[in-house]
């Protein structure tokens, strides 16, 4: 059986490679791999050919709700951005803190952290606040390649940050561990690592621009934009989130997509200039299309990999590695799996890993937190490189992708070591979970 599954795996890799060489997009290459795996599997009746369309279509569903979150969250932040709210905040940060560089960097870090923390998607951070933050970082005299590096690392940490961490949610759901106790377990490492990253990459001023020039370089804030106009939509959003948490049995379950839709509606109401909503929505969907399509094709790939046994064989291989090697290997396995499968990796490798860790006496919740700060690094690795590509795009960096990625190596290493130590010493760190309850 191993041989047959191995051949199917090779077939999928080959289909992916050929599609990439033919200059097809990453999404279509993943689709090609899924279809090739399904057709190859049909020879062995795993799955039978007649079931292939059903498997392909069923595979489109695992991330349907995540797609709704992405779409509504991005539309909401696009509205805030379009109405001048993001520029207002970024400009305020530069005006107040230009001379206190550390504080300016930290405020910008928080601005990147918030959208990703709320949606669980680093891409939302980049898509909605990436561009103005990149401008602000440039105004602080940070070159483009470092700006891109900061955006990428901090957006990844944003995705891992509480309250919404999709890797942890997938793992908890798959291992029957309650999704609780992550607030400090994730929050503290994310803040420390984020602070380290912005200071390491951003503390040194490399370009000349004084405060007046920096402010002039930032996009203008539309007249009538006031602090409360930025604040109110967020109050609506957090209000709904907090209401659900505080009076769970008195409020209906809203869900993130509806919470973001309500916030978007509010943002439109209070905006000093009324953006063309339809045009904005169409553009949002166009911009999001590759991301949404990635969720679709990754689900399809995941479904085909399971139906053919490829997923089982990979997870078998991972848990068969000797423990010490496994701990060291996490540094490579986790990011690379994310680079190939995005969230699918958490389900395929993460679930058996967590069961295994649990069985050898590690603390599952801390181990999940540890792994989930390592996973986002994979979003900078090809073939998908979702967040990496977005970071390069919004920071306007013109160099090669690898020269951008090289900039991230110190934070990358620190995050990797932190993550592995969190897994290895998870039992000792379980006090973080207690604090969070």
């Amino acid at each position, binding site marked *: 059986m191993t041989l047959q599954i191995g051949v199917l795996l090779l077939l999928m890799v080959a289909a992916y490679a050929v599609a990439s060489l033919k200059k097809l997009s990453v999404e279509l290459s993943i689709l090609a791999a899924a279809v090739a795996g399904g057709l190859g599997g049909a020879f062995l009746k795993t799955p039978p050919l007649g079931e292939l369309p059903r498997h392909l*279509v069923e595979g489109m569903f695992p991330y349907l709700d995540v797609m709704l979150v992405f779409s509504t969250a991005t539309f909401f932040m696009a509205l805030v951005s379009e109405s001048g709210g993001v520029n207002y905040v970024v400009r305020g940060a530069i005006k107040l803190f230009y001379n206190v560089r550390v504080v300016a960097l930290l405020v910008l870090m928080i601005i990147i952290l918030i959208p990703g923390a709320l949606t669980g998607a680093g891409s939302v951070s980049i898509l909605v606040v990436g561009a103005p933050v990149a401008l602000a970082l440039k105004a602080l005299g940070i070159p483009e390649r470092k700006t891109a590096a900061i955006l990428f690392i901090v957006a990844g940490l944003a995705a891992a940050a509480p309250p919404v961490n999709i890797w942890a949610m997938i793992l908890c759901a798959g291992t029957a561990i309650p999704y609780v106790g992550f607030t400090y377990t994730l929050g503290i490492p994310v803040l420390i690592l984020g602070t380290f990253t912005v200071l390491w990459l951003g503390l040194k001023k490399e370009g000349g621009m004084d405060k007046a020039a920096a402010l002039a370089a930032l996009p203008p804030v539309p007249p009538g934009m006031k602090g409360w106009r930025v604040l109110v939509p967020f109050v609506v959003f957090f209000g709904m989130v907090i209401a659900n948490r505080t009076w769970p049995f008195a409020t209906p379950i809203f869900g993130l997509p509806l919470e973001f839709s309500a916030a978007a509606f509010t943002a439109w109401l209070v905006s000093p200039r009324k953006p063309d909503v339809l045009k904005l929505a169409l553009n949002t969907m166009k911009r999001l299309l590759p991301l949404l399509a990635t969720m679709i094709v990754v689900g399809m790939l995941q479904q085909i990999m399971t139906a053919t046994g490829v997923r089982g064989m990979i997870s078998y291989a991972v848990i068969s590695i000797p423990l010490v090697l496994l701990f060291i290997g996490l540094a490579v396995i986790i990011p690379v799996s994310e680079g190939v499968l995005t969230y699918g990796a958490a389900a395929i490798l993460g679930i058996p890993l967590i069961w295994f860790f649990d069985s050898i006496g590690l603390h599952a919740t801390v181990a999940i937190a540890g792994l989930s700060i390592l996973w986002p690094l994979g979003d900078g690795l090809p073939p998908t490189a979702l967040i990496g590509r977005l970071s390069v795009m919004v920071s306007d960096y013109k160099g090669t992708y690898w020269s951008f990625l090289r900039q991230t190596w110190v934070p990358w290493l620190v995050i990797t070591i932190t993550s592995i130590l969190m897994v290895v010493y998870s039992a000792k760190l379980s006090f973080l979970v207690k604090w969070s309850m």
Partner: protein
Amino acid sequence: MNVIMIFYYLITAALVCLLGWNLIREKKSANDMILGLLVMIPLVLRLLRVK
């Protein structure tokens, strides 16, 4: 079906319309046409209450 669930069908329907409109406007990229259609499939099946 409760009110909140109806909102979710409306959100889904809105996304299908936006994707469909973008698909109709798309003139250049066959890639984007395929991706748009792929994304629409599960949304349409949800609207039809198949899955």
